[in-house]
């Protein structure tokens, strides 16, 4: 391998991809590269929204460790090491292309990149308040072309992040038609759904929620085309065969599964289960890994793929080779945004998963939930008072509760 690309797709649920079992045909291109990929079936995000998840994806550290100081200073802590910083020090060309405002340079995410494009100077439309994947592809094309044209043998690390699936869910007509041509709403009417339901987190009308999910799926179909286009660029520049590509999302999105919409601080599967696919051009045949893994493992994997020494600060483990990955539990943590606003003090929410058991703690109401995901994938049957495993699972989370207030310890 020479190069590595990390392609993250904001708010992409695992269960809408064909290769993860969906029958809607939303991701024909991503499904088509499975024969040269390792697909992780039980990948977990360490957090249910961008700020809680990206510390794992780019710095292999948990969100709450330094969150208080970061919120105070509105700046990523220097105690987190970005994988770009590690690679840049080794002479690898690093570039980032994204348009998620939580990850802008003013918040400190620009460390370690030779090129950092965060689209902060672009004007955006209310109905698509980000730079569209196709536009980002053009910018990346330029960067890749000049990297190739320079004749350098320097490997590169590229991080590309698509925002298009994220609400307000106003997709192009072409893609709506691919999902459900009977949807007879113009852009303004669609945008009004966002204002009236999503913004108010009002999931009470089942019809509206189903409609929103279809609009979301239309964006998924659209992003699959953007991924196809991007792979086309790599082929055109003749670098596809020398590039490993990690495809994942930062978290999922809720459509009423647990009474809400969007992604504010719940720890259920619709937000925590993420797709994680590693495309390796030299691979012959598909591979599936059923081990429980986490997106905190992504930076160590990148470092290993470049043949570098493990980074001491990184909390995760390399995902490759899958047979060396240990059997272990996964943690996730976040601030409970809704409750923290209502109660005017920060409230944490945590989960821990071991095999198919998952425990969730919400500080706002001091509640514990335990689910057996094998028999209850929808997480509706709380076993906390009946399961013999409850105490041991609780014991795993206890030491982590309150850690946002312990000042980086």
């Amino acid at each position, binding site marked *: 391998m020479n190069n590595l690309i990390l392609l993250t797709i904001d708010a992409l649920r695992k269960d809408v991809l064909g290769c993860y079992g969906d029958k809607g045909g939303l991701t024909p291109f991503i499904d088509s590269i499975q024969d040269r990929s390792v697909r992780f079936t039980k990948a977990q995000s360490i957090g249910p929204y961008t700020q809680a998840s990206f510390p794992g994806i780019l710095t292999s550290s948990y969100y709450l460790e330094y969150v208080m*100081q970061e919120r*105070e*200073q*509105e*700046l990523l*802590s*220097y*105690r987190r090491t970005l994988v770009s910083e590690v690679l840049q020090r080794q002479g690898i060309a690093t570039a980032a292309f994204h348009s998620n*405002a*939580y990850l*802008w*340079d*003013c*918040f400190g995410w620009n460390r370690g990149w030779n090129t950092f494009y965060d689209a*902060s100077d672009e004007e*955006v439309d*209310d109905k698509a*308040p*980000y730079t569209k994947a196709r536009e980002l592809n053009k910018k990346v094309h330029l960067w890749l072309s000049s990297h190739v044209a320079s004749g350098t043998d320097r490997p590169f690390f590229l991080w590309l992040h698509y925002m298009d699936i*994220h*609400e*307000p869910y106003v997709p192009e007509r072409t893609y709506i038609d691919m999902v459900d041509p009977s949807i007879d709403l113009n852009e303004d009417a669609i945008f009004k759904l*966002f204002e009236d339901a*999503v*913004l108010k987190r009002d999931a009470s009308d089942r019809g509206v929620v189903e409609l929103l999910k279809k609009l979301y799926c239309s964006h998924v179909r659209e992003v699959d085309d953007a991924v196809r286009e991007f792979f086309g660029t790599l082929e055109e520049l003749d670098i596809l065969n020398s590039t490993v590509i990690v495809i994942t999302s930062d978290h999922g999105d809720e459509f009423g599964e647990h009474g809400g919409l*969007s992604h504010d601080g719940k720890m259920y599967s619709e937000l925590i289960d993420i797709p994680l696919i590693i495309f390796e051009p030299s691979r012959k045949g598909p591979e599936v890994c059923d081990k429980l893994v986490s997106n905190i493992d992504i930076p160590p994997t990148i470092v290993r793929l470049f043949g570098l020494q493990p980074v001491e600060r990184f909390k995760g483990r390399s995902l490759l080779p899958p047979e060396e990955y240990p059997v272990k539990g996964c943690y996730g943590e976040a601030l409970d*945004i809704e409750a923290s*606003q209502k109660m005017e003090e920060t409230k944490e929410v945590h989960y821990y998963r071991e095999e198919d058991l998952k425990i969730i703690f919400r500080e706002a109401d001091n509640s514990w939930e335990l689910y057996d995901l094998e028999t209850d994938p929808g997480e509706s049957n709380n076993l906390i008072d009946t399961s013999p495993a409850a105490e041991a699972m609780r014991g795993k989370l206890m030491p982590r509760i309150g850690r946002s207030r*312990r*000042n*980086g*310890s």
Partner: protein
Amino acid sequence: MDHEGIGAPIDGKGDGDMVDEKRERELAGKIEKAKEIFKQAFERFSPEETRLIWSGGKDSTLVLWICRQFCGENNLALPGSFTIDEGDSFEEIDEFLKRYSREWNVGLDWGRNEDVLKASNYTLGADVHMKDLNERNRAELKRIGFDQEKFPFEAESYAGNHLMKTVVFNAYLEQNTVRAVFQGIRWDEHPARKNDQYSEEIGAAELVPAHARYRPILHFTERDIWDTTHHYKIPFCSLYEQGYRSLGVKTTSLKAADIPAWEQDLENTSERGGRRQDKEKAMQRLRKLGYM
């Protein structure tokens, strides 16, 4: 621009054409007002008992420049100056300070919290453990209610800010029996400054020696600073020409734009803002994405 790229008087650019006669009188009046503050200070304290706090930024450099004039006109010795090195400074600033302390023949003391720097292994972001700190630093942290085992070495963290700036400042006053300092604070630089007075008495407290603070250029706006600097060919650090509006520690100071500070829209944008304005824009963007 000076060939070393450090920043120096600008020839033919900026003066005269930017400042007409009326504006010149206005600026002269503001300088006179500043001199009145020096006069008040030197009626109470001898120059040896005072120090100029000189960061190398545009404001404190102007304070020094006015002070030199005042002392020359009144046959007074020039006070020494003091700068705080937080372990994260711009080289351009350090060079500027060294060069003009020599050229202007002004004494310059550098203060740094060597104990903290050593405990951090001189590495930004590294953990500083309480047990590695000396008694004074531990007492200082206790005084501000910091009770953790460790903190990250960052000048702008809660503990770091206190140890790297406040403690260094207080220790310097104490060791050199300084009774008054001159600061380059301005009313318009930050809303929090709007009630500041031209002078303030700081009473003695635990680990804080009693001293007076004089702020001779409180009434200068950012525009006044640049017009004065250009008109009187006062030197300034080259970073301002690159677009920095306000210089702090290196890792948290950002360029506001890629044009010289004085060519930016000083009246309608925030001086400390490279960062702040971007963040406000980010918040707007996030609201559009449905985040409250």
